[in-house]
Every structure is written in C-alpha cells, then in structure tokens.
C-alpha cells in the first residue's frame, strides 16, 4: 500500500510526528540524514533527473562565479589573476563609506526604487483587473497583444523616442510650454528625471507585467462570482471580495521578490537618460558599479560595491518574507 505514488493516509497526530521526524532528519547531519536522503533519491530518481539541468545551471552560472567575489577584497589586476593580486581586505568597503558621495548613490537608488514600488508596481495589477472585467473576449485578446508590444522594444529605442517628443523641439515640450507659459525641461531637469524613468518603465513594462496576474485570475472559481451576483453584489463588490483576495498571495509574492531588487535600478536605462545636467539624480549604485568597473577599470572597487548591494538585498528578502509570514501569507518559502 505505502508506495511512493500513493502515501497512506495518516491521522493528524501521526502526521505531526512524521513531520517532526522528517525535520529532525533533515536538520541533523548524522548518518540518519544521509541514509534518508539517499533513499529519497533512489525512490524518486526520475524526479531528481528532472531537477538535474536546473541544478547544473545554478552551479555553473550562479555558484561557481561567486568565487569571483574574492576580487572585492583584493586590488585585482586581471593580468596577475585572482590568486596573484594583492590582498587588501576591506579597503574598498571602507573607501566607499568614507567617500562623501555614497549617501547620494544610496539615496538616489532608494528614492527611485520607492517611486517604482509606489507607482509602477500597482500598474500591472490594475491593468490586469481591468482586462479581467472585459466582456468581449476577442477585443480583450487583441488589447493584450498590443499591450505586450512595448516590452519587446529596446530601451534604447524608447529613450530615442522620448528625446524626440520631449526635447525642446518635441511636441510635448511645445505643448507644455503653451499650456504653462514656461517649458518643463524634461530631459535636463534633475527633478523631472525620476518621473521620466518611472513613466518610461510604466509605458514599457505594464502590459507585460499583467501576465502573471492574469494567470492568477484564471484560477478564481467562477461559481463564486455567480453566487455573489445572486446575492446582489455589484461589480466593485465582486472585485473587492472575490478577485482581490484570490490574487492576494500572488501580489505578496511579487512584492517580496521586488524587495529583493530594491537596490537594483539597472544602469542601461539610467545612463541613456543621464546627462551633465541631471546626473545628480541618475547616480544610483548600479550606475556606480558600471562607471567604476567598466568605464574606469576599477574592477575590485566595483565588485565590492556590488557585493555590498547583494548582501543588503538578501537581508531585505528574508525580512520581508518574515513580515509576510507574520501577516498570515504563505510568502516566498
């Protein structure tokens, strides 16, 4: 009876005891743990085989390159190699925190991320809800396809289009000049810079971002809607009491994942939009890493700042996951 495919039913007490036993085996390092692991592998060998490509991917492309982080504690010169370069300990970290500008880099990063979470993050959710309410299926499909298109346009093109319509001879520049009596310098005012970045991101990625929420919405039991309609619930009530709760865990999951990349602003989009006049707003940690590492050839300094960024990101993911658990959500893990 007790085969792998069909585990026998256990009572609640037995189940808890089994869980305790597994946890003990999992967390110990005694022979019991290894024996059990081997038994698991033997039993589910085909499933483990399925896991193999993913495992190899992570080892080759994610774990092995981590050795490269060693260079953030060295004065790395490529010709001397990782082993031959001078060991300098925490010099680069100290240098970064001693330089008066690190607060500007961190501040710019956090402001841009916060703006992105507040203004960009809800955009795909709202759009997905709107799409979900559409009655005509053909129209909905057409609209979805059109909304995905901007995602496939290179950011270089997006920035070029922006330059054309927001530049001083562009239509929007001229229009605001007419309406307000004075122009808004979209491309050079550091106060407008972040809004431009957020605006471009919303334009480009909102449509694509709806995919995951639309997928979550398909799981909502249509009987619930029918029952609610019978009870006299309007559209807004159905949205509030059925749709939103159904995708809540997806939203929380996405938010936790987003927390892990709070310090990731990307650099390509920013350096394309940056110039001498708005540079103060565009200097984020990612831009710093790019400028030091690739433009300036300071490989060690750049990877030290990159490493620091990753450490903070891990802390943010773990703590937001904890908060999600505390609020009764399943969270990320």
């Amino acid at each position, binding site marked *: 009876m007790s085969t792998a495919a069909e585990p026998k039913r256990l009572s609640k007490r037995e189940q808890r005891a089994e869980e305790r036993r597994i946890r003990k085996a999992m967390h110990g390092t005694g022979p019991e743990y290894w024996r059990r692991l081997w038994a698991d592998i033997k039993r589910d060998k085909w499933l483990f085989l399925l896991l193999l490509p993913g495992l190899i991917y992570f080892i080759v492309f994610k774990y092995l390159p981590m050795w490269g982080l060693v260079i953030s504690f060295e004065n790395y*010169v*490529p*010709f*001397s190699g990782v082993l031959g370069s001078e060991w300098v300990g925490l010099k680069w970290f100290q240098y970064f925190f001693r*330089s*008066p*500008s690190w607060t500007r880099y961190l501040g710019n990063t956090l402001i841009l991320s916060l703006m992105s979470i507040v203004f960009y993050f809800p955009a795909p959710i709202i759009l997905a809800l709107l799409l979900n309410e559409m009655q005509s299926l053909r129209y909905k499909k057409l609209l979805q396809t059109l909304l995905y298109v901007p995602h496939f346009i290179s950011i270089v093109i997006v920035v070029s289009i922006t*330059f054309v319509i927001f*530049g*001083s001879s562009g239509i929007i520049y001229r229009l605001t000049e007419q309406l307000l009596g004075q122009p808004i*310098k979209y*491309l*050079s*005012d550091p106060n407008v810079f972040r809004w431009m970045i957020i605006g471009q991101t919303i334009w480009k990625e909102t449509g694509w971002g709806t995919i995951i929420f639309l997928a979550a919405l398909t799981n909502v039991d249509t009987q619930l809607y029918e029952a609610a309609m019978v009870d006299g619930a309007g559209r807004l009530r159905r949205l509030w009491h059925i749709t939103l709760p159904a995708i809540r865990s997806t939203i929380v999951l996405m938010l936790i994942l987003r927390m892990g990349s709070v310090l990731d602003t990307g650099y390509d989009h920013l350096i394309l939009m940056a*110039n*001498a*006049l708005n*540079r*103060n707003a565009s200097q984020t940690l990612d831009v710093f890493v790019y*400028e*030091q*590492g*690739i*433009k*300036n*050839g*300071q*490989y060690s*300094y750049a990877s030290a700042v990159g490493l620091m960024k990753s450490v903070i990101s891990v802390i943010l993911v773990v703590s937001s996951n904890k908060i999600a658990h505390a609020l009764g959500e399943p969270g990320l893990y």
Partner: protein
Amino acid sequence: MKKLISLFLALVMVLSMASFAAAEEPFELTVLLPDFYSTEDFQTENNPVLDAIEAATGVRLKVTFAANSEYGNTINTTLADPSEKQPMVISLTDARGTSIINSARAGAFWDLTDFVKDAENYPYLAAGPEGVYNNVSVDGRIYGIYRSRAYPRAGIYYRSDIAKEAGIEKEPETIEELTALAEALAAYGKEHDAYALNMVSYTAGTISIITCAFGAPNTWGIDAEGNIYPAHEDPAYLEGLKWLRHLYEIGGINPDFVTIDSTNWDSIERTSKAYMRFDCLDNCYRQQEWFETNEGVTDQIFAMIPGLKKADGSITIWPQNPGFAGEVVVTKAVKEADLPKVVKFLDWCNGPEGQMLLNWGVQDVTYWLDEDGYRLAAPADGSDVTAQIHLIQHSLNQLGMNVPGDLCIPAKLTALRQEYNDFNSTYGQYAVTNPCYPFVSETYVAFGSMLDQIISDAAVQYISMQIDEDGLRAAWQQWSDEGGAMITEEYNAAYHASLGE
C-alpha cells in the same frame, strides 16, 4: 671534430631553411583599433591595403574595430581577459586610464624601453623625443609607442559668410570682438532657426578653449608661489564660464546641447544649424572642403581664430593635446620570441611606406595624385569614392603613430590648410601645457574620471543656468572633498620632487 662542425653547419642550414620557409607564411598580427566608421563594413578579404602591408612586411593584420565612443569600455573589458586570445597590439586613445596603468605595472604589456632607444634597429621609433616618451611612461618604463598628434591644434572657427551677413566683417582679435561676433551670430541665428555656438554633450574642449583664452591654465596651473593648483581655482576659469553662460542666456547655444551626441557635431554645421565651434582647427578646412564638394560652395565660408589677445595684449591658447593622443601597446599575447618582429613592424608603420599605407592606403584605390604629385582624397574625375575608401581604409589610421612626424605625400595646400599649418608654427609658443602630465597621482589614477566629471558637470550646469556661482563653488568643494585635494597634494609632491626640492 670536423665531423661535428659539419654536422652543426648542416643543422644550421636546415634550421635557416626552415625559418625561411616559415617567413613565407605571413605572421598573423591581431590588432584592436578604435572605429570612427562603426556603422560601416570593413573589407577583411582581398583588401588591397592589408595585402600591400603583407607584401611589404610579411605581417597579415587581423583587425578588430571597436566603436570610438565606447572605446574605453572595450579596453577595460579586453584587459579584463588576459589570454592568448587578447589582441597582440592595442591602440589606446588614453594612455593614463586606471586599468592601463595597473595592467602595465602588472606586466600585461611588453616593456619597450630598450627597443625605442635602439636607433640602429628601430630608427623610426627612436626618432621620437625622449620627453614625449616620458609622458607615456609608467614608473620610468615605456610600455607603449605614443600616437603623435599636431600641437597645438585647438582654436575657434566660424562661418565668415554668415558673420558678414550679421554685420561683422573683421576677424576677431580680442575677447570683446569675439563677444560681439557671438552676439551678432546669436541674433542672426534667432531669425534662421540656428544657434551661434555649436555645442554638444562633449564639452571639455569648448570649455578649455574659452577658459584658456581668458588666461586660465590647462587643467593644472602653477601659482605665484610655485605650487600646483587646479584650473577651476583660477578666476579666469570662471570668466570663461560666464562668457558661455551669457551666450546661453541670449539664446546663442542650443538649450538641449547636453543631450546631443558628439557624433552630430559635424552635421549641425553642415546643415547650418550653428555657426561657430571651439574645437580642433583641422575641422575648419575639412568643413570648408565638405561644403565645396557637397554644396558646390566656391568661396571661402569659414575663418579660424587660433588665439585671442587679452586686455594686456598677451595670448594663451589651449593646445588640445600634449603632442600625442594615447599610445600603441604590445600585449603578452605576443610570444617573447616574436616580440622583435612585432616591434620591427611597429617601426615600419612609422616609416614613410607604413605611414602612407595606414593613413591613406593604396594609390588609385583610396588616394590619388594630381599632375604635380600632390595627394588627392578623390579621383580627378570627381566621382564619389567615400564608401569605397571607408570599406577598405576604415579607421586603419588609428594604428598610425607617426613618431618621426608626418612623412606622407602632402596634399595641395588650400588657403585654410596653409593657415592651419602656419598657425601651428606661429602660435605654438602660446600653448599652455598641463604641467602635471608627466606625473602619476595614485588618487587620480583610481578616481580621476569621476572627479573630472564633477568639475565638468558643474561647469555645464552653470552654463545652462541651472546653478549659480554658489552652486559652482559647492561642486568644486565636493571635488576637493572627494579626492581633489589629495590629487593636488600628490601632484605638488611629485612636481617639487622633480625640481629637486
């Protein structure tokens, strides 16, 4: 014994035969060069220029071109992978980058010090003055052959025909006259949808030319007490910025100039969207010749001003470069046994034959001669060969070092080319050099480019009226706090040490 000797001789003969046979196989030399025609193709097979180089030297060039605008990035990523696959010879546009100096110190490049002093075997390389070699040296060793450039080269040029229409006949000789010209061009431009001064996102040259015209030093100066100080601390520097700010305020500069890529610099002038430019003066005769070829212009419509008189009658000009622009290095991808061969090739590149092939290519394919023996850039029948030249010649001139000076067949001197040549000899004495060029500041090597950006960004913000004088001074203070003060200190120490104090 005799037997042994004859055996030895036989062996030597066989070996020399073998090496002779090997010499027939071309030596493949991989080269990395900056590319000024990155949107166009380069012909690698059956390229008459590469074939001619191979016939003359036995070296087959395998060239990798990388876009000039991103060349610094390419160099840094190339140096990050020191392997056999690295290019053997790299043309560097900046000899003082962090990764360049670090790589040189770590031994990524061959030490060429002994080669460039060997006048017997490498006559063209040894012809270069020691002073210039010192400027590209690292810790007293020479790792690269400098790429020689005319000196001083920079100045102001403008559309003289437009100036006449705007009511200015006389070529400006003082700053006041330049201001009058700029204001007249700005007023004229307002009616013709154009601007007086052609400015783009690359502003370093423009700012240096105007600040030096007011009397500021070139990047670093030496004050009355004999100490090194940064150019922006000189009152004349602010005067220069104020001049540009005034021109911006009256609408003489495109308000969007920071967003315009420097690749558009020429086309702005060619479409008459701006009338004046502060840049290398060789562009002046090039633009004139472009208008002659493409717009059928016959009159001289450009004029150049190499230097302006200050109130006290003195002239200072920014020299654009210290006599060279970057260097050519040999990486360790070249085996030690092949090194003399590679250096010999670089020496040949500096001779008349090499210079001609690299800069102008093959006669009747990429350049032509008129009946007097002058070089022509296009055949006499006037057919358009630009695409053909770009396909074959591309940016091969970037490998040219021209250490012993220009040994190419000269082009016929137009009035403007003549003026340019005269200017280089007449105004050379007024050029202000950067006194810190031979010194290495560790802080500058590490963080220089970011610090430079603080100064140049602040200048642009001031010109664009985004910040006032207080904002400018705050940026200078920031520069000082973030390492500028340390650089000044290090340069001073090196400077005083060089004086033997």
